[in-house]
């Protein structure tokens, strides 16, 4: 079973050197092809689009098709290119900076992301820890059970919460039946609902990296700690927790970064006072048809997230290559 961050790479053959210089010399044309094909695809459909986003964030709206100006025309010659560059401006960024609405959306997104990541850490660590301590034979089953909801549609699962959280929904019915409330509280269209939805959807992303790190923990280390005088809770704090930090970091980044740009959950479960930056982008693009502003929103979001993204890549890439 494999998911975003929960890949369990066993640390068996850390000795193996999987890169062979002799192989490189002999089959170089085949190698170049193997590198080139995915490289070109990614460059074309991943890198170039981002450059385009950058470019459009520097353009203005126009009532035309496409709805922005200037339009880059590669065949128009050098002079046209100069004119094109002259028309680019930072006007969109200035309006972003000046408008409190955008700023509050960014802040709200970061708030929600941080808050839900924290909740996810607590619940996720408890669940992962329980899984790691379960009998060995049960563990693959537990992993499958945790991953299975992930395989079902994300949209479905968020929608399932609407079922539960709506005014006549099951949560309220249960609360009424247990006589915990007198009148039906409102859950939907609140911040709480958004948090519940986010924690619910992202839980596997937090659990699996932490579980992978805990599962690799050498049990004799805990025996050694006990032998040297540590009661179990202290051994957890001094040995287990520090050694599981790589998994915790991976899980936290894997959740925080996408949550910042989350759109579906706040849109379906949140209220009018809940506006996250993903929703802003969507609205600007689809409703207001203001592509340049939407692009500017995206670029700023990227800039905010650059540090965590680079951290994650550096971290995960190194981990995978080290065979852990």
């Amino acid at each position, binding site marked *: 079973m494999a998911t975003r961050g929960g890949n369990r790479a066993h640390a068996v053959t850390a000795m193996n050197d999987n890169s062979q210089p002799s192989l490189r010399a002999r089959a170089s044309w085949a190698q170049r092809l193997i590198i080139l094909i995915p490289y070109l695809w990614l460059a074309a459909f991943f890198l170039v689009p981002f450059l385009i986003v950058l470019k459009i964030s520097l353009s203005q709206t126009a009532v035309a098709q496409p709805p922005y100006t200037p339009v880059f025309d590669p065949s128009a010659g050098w002079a046209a290119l100069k004119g094109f560059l002259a028309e680019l401006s930072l006007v969109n960024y200035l309006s972003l900076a000046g408008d409190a609405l955008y700023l509050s959306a960014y802040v709200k997104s970061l708030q929600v992301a941080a808050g839900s990541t924290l909740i996810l850490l607590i619940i996720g660590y408890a669940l992962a820890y329980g899984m790691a301590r379960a009998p060995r034979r049960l563990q693959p089953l537990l992993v499958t059970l945790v991953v299975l909801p992930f395989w079902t549609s994300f949209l479905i699962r968020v929608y399932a919460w609407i079922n539960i959280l709506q005014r006549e929904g099951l949560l309220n019915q249960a609360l009424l039946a247990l006589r915990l409330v007198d009148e039906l509280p409102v859950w939907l269209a609140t911040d709480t609902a958004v948090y519940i939805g986010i924690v619910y959807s992202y839980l596997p992303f937090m659990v699996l990296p932490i579980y992978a790190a805990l599962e690799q923990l050498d049990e004799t280390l805990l025996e050694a700690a*006990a032998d*040297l005088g540590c009661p179990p809770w202290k051994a957890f704090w001094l040995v287990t927790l520090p050694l599981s930090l790589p998994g915790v970091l991976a899980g936290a980044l894997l959740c925080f970064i996408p949550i910042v740009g989350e759109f579906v959950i706040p849109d379906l479960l949140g209220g009018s006072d809940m506006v996250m930056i993903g929703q802003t982008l969507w609205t600007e693009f689809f409703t207001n048809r203001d592509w340049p502003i939407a692009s500017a929103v995206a670029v700023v979001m990227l800039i905010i997230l650059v540090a965590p993204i680079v951290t994650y890549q550096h971290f995960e890439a190194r981990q995978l290559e080290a065979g852990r």
Partner: protein
Amino acid sequence: MSNDKARRSVLGGVKRDFAPWADPTARPLIRFEQITKRFGETAAVDRATLDIYEREFFALLGPSGCGKTTLLRLLAGFERPSEGRVLLAGDDLGLVPPYQRPVNMMFQAYALFPHLTVEGNVAFGLKQDGLARGEIKARVAEMLGLVKLQGLEQRKPHQLSGGQRQRVALARALVKRPKVLLLDEPLAALDRKLRESTRFELMHLQDRLGLTFVIVTHDREEAMTLAHRIAVMDHGRIVQVATPAEIYEQPRSRFIAEFIGDVNLIEGGLAAIEPGLAAIESAAGRLTAADPGEAKLGSQVWLAVRPEKVRISLERPDGAAGAANCVAGQVTDIGYLGDVSIYHVRLRAGPMMTATAANLTRMVERPIGWHDQVWLSWPREAGIVLTR
């Protein structure tokens, strides 16, 4: 140079005069009372009873799966006995958890904390005791000096060699000055040369610190070199507890005889018992030993003779007392080890025997070669009669 000195001082000093087990008034430091540990249906340790005395270097020896590691872990507190008791200085350890026992363990794979430095690892146990920072630092420095790791305090385990990691594990266990140090196959991961030098360092350390060491090993050489006494275990049971010399020369069974060293086992029937003589009728003829042991007249016995006590020669030896047993055969194989040669001889009567002879001369061409007809002889006292 210093190894030789250590060897001499240990052989001449503590080991020779040290025998608290022979003293009826001495009280054991560790006592296992009818300890049984079951995992499911199988008993990993079966009614083991054992006394270990203070300042002893004690070895638990046996093949894989014999229960020696389980016995060690019962003492450390990582396993609870199904039946029986473990007593330390007279107190029943009972359900005392491992972090409250005055016993420390050096783990087989060292179990060094990868996220702590060498200093952090060694200081770990002291921190749990709540000692002052200054004292912790001093004791850590002292211990690292003792195991010759000064200067490496800030390194992490993955930056150390195998031998260095082993010393850190040792230092970490010793720094708390436990009553008993347990060592689980401590030399298994080292190469041969390092193993030999580390052995002597361990003995020296134990003698100097005056602690009780209990070591688990499957290597008979290790047990014989290091230990004052050895307990041989087989399938969860303790089959013999004695000094290395006693186990080697007076094994109680074929299993022990074969486990502790190479041995010739000749099957036969005990034909006659006279004072100072036991006669055995075997396929190799009528053989004699000095003592029938526990054997009854007419019962099936095995005559155990160590190869180094068997003399090999091209001519038939004369009837002197040193050649009370004399059989003929043909050399089928020779193992040349430089210092000794091992001769595999098929006796005329059928069974195989092994004789070991030291290569006393510097001749490259040896006098006895493949397919030579030879005579094997040994005195009456060289063999021991075994009943099981």
